């Protein structure tokens, strides 16, 4: 039953339509960064033939804060990712290898944690951080990100370790290796793709986070999303500058989607689809 010619045409047309829908806003964002001032909101819209200029980039980079925003985003993402992996990977391994039903079902506890609406966690966390005088520090933001990241890492790595054959570890244990050695020397190297996938998820989550950063950062620890808000002016529409700041904000997303998508897809679907 080979598809007929009309069907293939319809198929290609639908694909084109889908790509158009999903790529249009991104294309618009990318080109707006190169439109200065009123060009950005010219009517009728200018798609390709306009005055390409780097003025927006110059303006944004002339602002001494931009590197700071980027640096802060890197610090927070790196911190949260590191801690989440350090805490989450061993925990995921422990759950995967445990025979106790209690520990096995504790993975659902982490799943529940993942589902908590961020605002419900933020309100009390803000109060606790306030009482500890930690508001505005990297530590506060990294800690809260780590809660959600680590819960994901556990869930994800548990599924992953369950797929890693146990025989080699058991053989190592028989040969006198300690369980810790079995974990670090055998299970970990086998699960590098899973760890990469988890790490990508953590990076994206922390990099994209806006609500937590909004409440927990100080002027010195602001991350990129807050930098985007700062690029708005009260007196003029400033889509050009907004677009430039946004491009900084979406670089990790682009890299991951286009070059590391194998891992990323795994991260997104595995945690969800596997029981």
């Amino acid at each position, binding site marked *: 039953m080979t598809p007929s010619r009309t069907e293939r045409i319809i198929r290609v047309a639908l694909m084109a339509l889908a790509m158009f829908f999903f790529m249009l806003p991104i294309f618009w964002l990318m080109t707006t960064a190169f439109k200065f001032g009123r060009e950005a909101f010219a009517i009728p819209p200018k798609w390709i033939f306009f005055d390409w200029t780097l003025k927006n980039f110059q303006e944004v980079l002339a602002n001494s804060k931009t590197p700071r925003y980027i640096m802060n985003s890197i610090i927070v993402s790196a911190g949260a990712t590191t801690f989440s992996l350090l805490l989450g990977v061993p925990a995921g391994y422990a759950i995967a290898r*445990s025979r106790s039903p209690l520990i096995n079902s504790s993975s659902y506890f982490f799943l529940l944690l993942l589902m908590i609406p961020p605002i419900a966690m933020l309100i009390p966390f803000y109060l606790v951080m306030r*009482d*500890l005088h930690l*508001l505005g520090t990297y530590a506060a933001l990294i*800690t809260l990100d780590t809660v959600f990241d680590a819960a994901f890492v556990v869930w994800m790595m548990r599924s992953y370790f369950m797929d890693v054959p146990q025989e080699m570890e058991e053989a190592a244990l028989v040969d006198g290796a300690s369980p810790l050695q079995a974990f670090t020397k055998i299970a970990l190297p086998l699960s590098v793709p899973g760890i990469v996938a988890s790490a990508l998820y953590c990076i994206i989550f922390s990099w994209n986070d806006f609500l937590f950063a909004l409440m927990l950062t100080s002027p010195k620890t602001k991350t990129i999303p807050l930098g985007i808000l*700062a690029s708005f*002016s009260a*007196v003029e*529409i400033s889509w050009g500058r907004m677009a430039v700041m946004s491009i900084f904000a979406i670089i990790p997303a682009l890299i991951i989607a286009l070059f590391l998508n194998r891992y990323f897809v795994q991260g997104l679907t595995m945690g969800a689809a596997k029981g």
Partner: protein
Amino acid sequence: MRNKTTFFSLVLIIALLAMMLAACAPAQPAEPPAEQPPAEPPAQQPTEAPKEEPAAPEKPFAGTELVLASMTDQYVAAFRYLIPKFEEETGIKITLDELGYVDLYQKLTADFVGHTANYDLMTVDIVWSGEYAQNKYTLPLDDFMERDKDELQLDDIMPVAWTLGEWEGQHWAYPLAGYANVLNYRKDVFADAGLEPPKTQEELLEYAKMLTKPEEDFYGIALLGAKGPAVAQDYMVFVQQHGSSILDEQGNVAINTPKNVEVLKFFGELFKYAPPGATDYWWDQRETAFRSGNVAMMEGWSIARAGYENPDISSVVGKVDIALAPVAEGMEPKYGFGGWGIGINADSENAEAAWEFIKWLTSPEVQKDWILNDGAPIRRSTLEDPELNEKFPWFPVLLESFEKGDGDYRPRIPEYSIIQDALGTTVNAYLVGEMTAEEALEQAQAQVEAALK
């Protein structure tokens, strides 16, 4: 198998915790929050009298670092221009943190209630005066002002400008940028139609109607309609211009009066002659609509006036004039006054240096540079300065608006933000047809009363 791991896992836990602490430590001592009752908030008493600093010869505050939170209003350009000069003169370093209106209010409140002292200086909207005073968020400046009264030239500051931060006799912010609510109109459009700029609200509506030509995508008036502070504040402008008020004579919140309902209906009527998107307009978009030449009139803050002559952002260069804001027929003319003060965080450890900046910035000499770089005036000497008048020929209108200015039409009471939040939702709901005018004000009143309970 499990039991044998106990020792190793203990080692691992300790190692991990140690690593965690080590990594958190540089930022702050970060002991994990144990299940202890939350500590008492630190007692916050604003320092009563400024410490007598020994009069050091020069640059007594060199090396002090201040953080200034500024609204991303036009005057932020003046801050950017002037701060390096101040830094050079005094050796005080100022970091400027620019925030949008909503974010600024939220971030500042968070800074005050958290006692985090992230900001030493902040621009304070006129309407926050009462709230800041009641909660003692900012430092009362009266002692500073008394001490330095000889150099401050307080008499030169327009009387109405003191409403930028004064509350019940004390000054919780110092006047920074005074705005008059004025009518901007298109000279060319009015000339073509053979009209004079409207003097009364009734004429405003009539002309808006006459000048609206939807088929040419041209509208009579640009208004603020976006949910939130924007629509609430614009509505209150019209409440004032119709001689009504949000408060009754005793100062109680009385939003749902028949008079206010009438004003709201008038406001809704005006929106028929505004661009269709106006119910979504925030300040930036209203300004853009006017500057791109699609509307004939716009009531707005005087600070934006200079921008209409800037060809980089404006399509109406040379076509705009301003007039006094029209008031309802038969009403004693009073003009909406607004703008920003500059305050010092009550928790700041650098109050003296911060005051130094305020003093410097508002001094008559620096005020000229401030105005020339998109700032807004507070001093009579600035408004009457011949050179500035030549450059900004609309200054006489400003001076008159300031002299008959009313800084209290938006009630500067401590409850202001609650009123604005309620009106910001319900007036917008009326404009888009979710509620009737009566329902809208009814609900706003109920919401405010519930919040104040």
